[in-house]
């Protein structure tokens, strides 16, 4: 072989295995089912927003593939004081925002302070702990002081709501932050957003600080990313089958069997995966104020049939609020939910709801017809219709109100309902309980408006526990209490999947808050 031929062959091999810029100028095409109202991480709990935020912005700590181990990211190390009230984070010194500005401890202090500020009313502010002060010791050292211990802090700091923002960018954009744009240190940079249509990102050329869980520390191997919103399920299936898109975390569960059989697609299940589809009661509404009524609705349905019939077996029936495999699960919470239609009828009778001539129960001239809010194109909407069918048999008429995904968070915020539904991902029992049942989280995400001093105390003791036993005990007591009160109808533990075109290499679904994409550093064609 001549030298010239040898060089050419070498280049060809290098290109084939990815050393050469094989993907230069290429676009990664991603498909989603729903959009988000905005992308300001501090002002949302909406996982479709979190997906994009995770691409564009970074956290101090990353979550490893096992879904429970926090690993260094923007913070290369951290120390905790013996009383658990002070964390000292040592930041990387080579991190830049998409705008080119260097990230410093000032940006970290600003971001956490903004999340906790009363003006923002961050629904996930509690995930940052009871912050006393977050200050910049020097350009790359952050002092993170808490008023009380928070054993889960490193784990919680992996959440997209704790991303580090560019102070100048936030102040410049003001109320348009997260709508007109957002500067970040993530592997992708925000370009533009057409609501309900498309989001465009580009590669962050500075990026080289990917967490060790990825083989590629950065930058990503694509020039651009186009994320399209395709609300119709059949259209999403057709689009993936035709090769129009490279990756989606929103493949309709009903078609997963076809996807697995399709020669051009790869289906991967995210593991571990704690994701609960539940219906919550707003207990301050008279119709669902009585725990007997709430229990009746919860035990009059058949979860196994719903999982098999509606989600075609891609979900497991949930008889407790927390998955039995999750950290700090309380086995006793299982005792409060036993499906029994006869008992449901008895409970409703005892609660004074008598069967009307039209087959719907009534009391004091009011029909037992709770208003139920669900978001369109979600599993919640489909499952709600099945539950509606079961409950008609016991004289309950669920009045479904299906909202478009961009309106749903606003409408749910208005709380003009008796029942609402979402599918919530979580990390641990304490994570889920703290999110929903802490009275400080009223009205959102504590949409039940559950205000109980005992619950708050148990949550506090669980969060500040310095030993695992105390944490498990206190979070377990909360689980038992909220199960006894039937504040939720847990229905299904829903599986989470990532579907990719076979030409895309390096795909692996992450488990963090439904954000299967996470950073996408190892992806290539």
């Amino acid at each position, binding site marked *: 072989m001549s030298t010239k031929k040898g060089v050419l062959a070498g280049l060809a091999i290098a290109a084939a295995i990815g050393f050469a810029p094989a993907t230069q100028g290429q676009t990664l095409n991603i498909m989603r089912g729903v959009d988000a109202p905005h992308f300001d991480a501090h002002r949302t709990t909406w996982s479709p927003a979190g997906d994009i935020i995770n691409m564009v912005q970074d956290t101090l700590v990353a979550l490893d593939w096992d879904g429970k181990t926090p690993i260094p990211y923007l913070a290369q190390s951290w120390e905790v004081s013996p009383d658990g009230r002070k964390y000292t984070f040592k930041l990387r010194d080579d991190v830049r925002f998409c705008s080119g500005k260097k990230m410093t401890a000032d940006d970290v202090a600003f971001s956490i302070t903004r999340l906790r500020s009363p003006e923002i009313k961050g629904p996930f502010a509690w995930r940052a702990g009871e912050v006393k002060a977050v200050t910049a010791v020097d350009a790359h050292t952050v002092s993170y002081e808490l008023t009380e211990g928070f054993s889960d802090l490193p784990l919680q700091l992996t959440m997209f709501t704790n991303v580090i923002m560019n102070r100048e960018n936030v102040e410049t954009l003001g109320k348009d932050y997260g709508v007109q744009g957002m500067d970040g240190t993530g592997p992708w940079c925000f370009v533009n957003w057409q609501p309900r249509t498309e989001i465009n990102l580009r590669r962050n050329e500075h990026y080289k600080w990917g967490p060790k869980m990825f083989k590629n520390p950065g930058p990503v191997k694509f020039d651009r990313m186009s994320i399209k919103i395709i609300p119709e*399920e*059949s259209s999403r299936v057709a689009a993936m089958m035709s090769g129009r898109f490279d990756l989606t975390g929103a493949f309709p569960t*009903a*078609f997963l069997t076809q996807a697995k059989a399709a020669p051009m697609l790869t289906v991967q299940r995210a593991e571990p995966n704690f994701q609960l589809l539940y219906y919550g009661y707003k207990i301050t509404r008279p119709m669902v104020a009585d725990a007997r009524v709430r229990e009746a609705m919860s035990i009059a349905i058949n979860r196994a049939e719903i999982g098999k019939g509606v989600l075609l077996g891609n979900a497991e029936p949930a008889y407790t609020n927390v998955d039995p495999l999750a950290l700090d699960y309380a086995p006793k919470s299982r005792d409060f939910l036993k499906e029994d239609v006869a008992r449901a009828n008895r409970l409703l009778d005892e609660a004074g709801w008598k069967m009307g001539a039209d087959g719907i129960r009534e009391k004091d001239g009011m029909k037992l017809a709770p208003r139920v809010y669900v978001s369109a194109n979600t599993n919640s909407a489909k499952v709600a219709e099945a539950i509606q069918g079961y409950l008609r048999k016991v004289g309950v008429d669920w009045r*479904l109100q299906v909202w478009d995904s961009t309106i749903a968070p606003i409408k749910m915020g208005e709380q003009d309902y008796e029942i609402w539904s979402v599918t919530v991902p979580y990390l641990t029992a304490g994570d889920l309980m703290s999110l929903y049942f802490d009275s400080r989280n009223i009205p959102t995400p504590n949409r039940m408006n559950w205000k109980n001093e005992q619950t708050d105390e148990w949550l506090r003791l669980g969060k500040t526990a310095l030993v695992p036993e105390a944490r498990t005990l206190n979070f377990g007591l909360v689980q038992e209490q909220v199960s006894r009160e039937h504040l939720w109808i847990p229905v299904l533990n829903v599986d989470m999947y990532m579907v990719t075109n076979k030409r895309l290499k390096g795909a692996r679904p992450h488990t963090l808050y439904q954000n299967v994409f996470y950073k996408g550093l190892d992806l290539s064609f």
Partner: protein
Amino acid sequence: MSTTINAAPAAPATASSEMSRPSVLRRIMRDRVAGAAATILTVVVVAALFAEWVAPYDPYAINLLNVMAPPGGDHLLGTDSNGRDILSRLIYGTRNTLMLGLVGVIFGGLLGGLLGILAAFYKPLDGWIMRLVDVLLAFPAILIGLAVAAIAGAGMTAVLIALVVATIPDVARVARGAAIGVMEQEFMEAGRALGVSDFTLIWRYLTLNCISTIFVFLTLRFGQIILIGSALSFLGMGAQPPTAELGMMAAQGRDFLFMAPHIATVPSLAIFVIVLCANLLGDAIRDVLDPRLQQ
């Protein structure tokens, strides 16, 4: 005086009796296509009216152990994604869809007709009313439906309002055109000269002379109204689960097009047949009642 008034409007009596003559039905049925359309529509309407007795199953009864069953066997048209009998839902859904069309046509026709006739009769109002009609024309029904659904929430009420509002301007224009023609007739002049009240002139002289034109237009409009109503429900602005409505049934079925195409195609075909029959029948009625076409 009263005797004179009653004797004057000879022309209106002739026009209105044109519609009620038994020969009209016979003339429609002589047209084979129109006759077939009328027969199909009659069957559909009767089935919808007596849905409780005609439907083989409860349209809302779910059976999650028998979802997406293909047509045949116990379920003639199969079952949907919740295991509900599609034939039963189709029958009930047709009732709701026809109701949407009828309410849209009747109320839109009444309001639009009134506006058009008033515009023709009271010249100073003509400009104001027709500009209002122009404004209404500028808003597509789907946009109106979206606005109403955003304010009051999605539901049949939102669709009904959108359909009525969407019908008004077209009917107003047709009614005004017909009424202007009648206004030029001598019997109108005679009525005024005799001191007949405005109400009597509008109702007995003008409206009764325009009614056949408006009626023909509404029969043609009926199919379009059903189509718009179904489209609004398809988009999620109309009937909410579990209400059976053809547009919504088609929307729910689209998620399963690859696995169970009958869930979406059956209600879609039903909409197609109803709209086609309504249009064919409307054409036939126009042919029979429009004197120019008869010539």
